[in-house]
């Protein structure tokens, strides 16, 4: 999770490329809804989330594991329950990386413009 992409080597590891694990975790429509539901209410358990979504509790658990692995949620045990919460840092980092990719294209287009008009 470095800052903006270096002007050279945009494909190099750590050079601001969006994290595939995060995109992969977000790519599933059910997980996307799950994350949205969790974000909207701050916290939830597999049971409360399954009650709000057209998905079984075991399926919710499976999706939460994927989101947890991608660092998009954190979990804490509370008695017999596991409570989940969205971790905004990781989403934030991904949004910043996309902004870095956009900035890299802006630089390249500006260079083409200079060369074309020069």
């Amino acid at each position, binding site marked *: 999770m470095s800052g903006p992409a270096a002007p050279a*080597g945009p494909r190099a590891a750590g050079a601001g*490329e969006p994290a*595939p694990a995060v995109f992969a975790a977000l*790519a599933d429509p059910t997980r996307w809804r799950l994350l949205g539901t969790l974000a909207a209410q*701050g916290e939830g358990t597999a049971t409360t989330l399954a009650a709000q979504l057209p998905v079984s509790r075991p399926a919710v658990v499976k999706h939460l594991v994927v989101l947890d692995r991608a660092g998009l949620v954190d979990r804490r045990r509370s008695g017999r329950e596991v409570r989940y919460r969205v971790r905004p840092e990781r989403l934030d980092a991904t949004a910043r990386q996309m902004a870095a990719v956009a900035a890299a*294209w802006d630089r*390249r287009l500006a260079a*083409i*413009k200079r060369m074309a008009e020069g």
Partner: protein
Amino acid sequence: MAEDQIEREVRIDAPIERVWALVTEPEHVGAWFGDAGAEIELRPGGDFKLSWVEHGTVHGRVEQVEPPHRFAYRWLIAGPAEPTPANSTLVEFTLRADGDGTLLRVVESGFAGLEVDGGDAERDRRREDNVGGWRIELDELVAYARQWAVR
């Protein structure tokens, strides 16, 4: 709203043919994109290689060539390999004449399809889910999540 694609456009005060040459000819691409040369076989399926002194070579494949309006290629996240939606993103240039000048638009897409490692059943299923064109409303979700994080 952030999506799994990046779109950028610039107006250039030069004729479309000149811009087309800058976007597609290796000696120019090697100057505004890489810094250690480029090799582009300008035909669909052709090789695309872009080199940097510091970072080595990025490989890809030309997907579309319609002079002087459309040029598209896939470029790989790592190493030379057969480009697929799992290991590469798609870069599409569109050129349009605008008076004496040219509107140059670039779209890089497919970040959501990238995979960290090999496929499995879950990922295959996910790829099918994605066909309809999934978009990330990332900013919205970040704002949402933040609102709770401060409590």
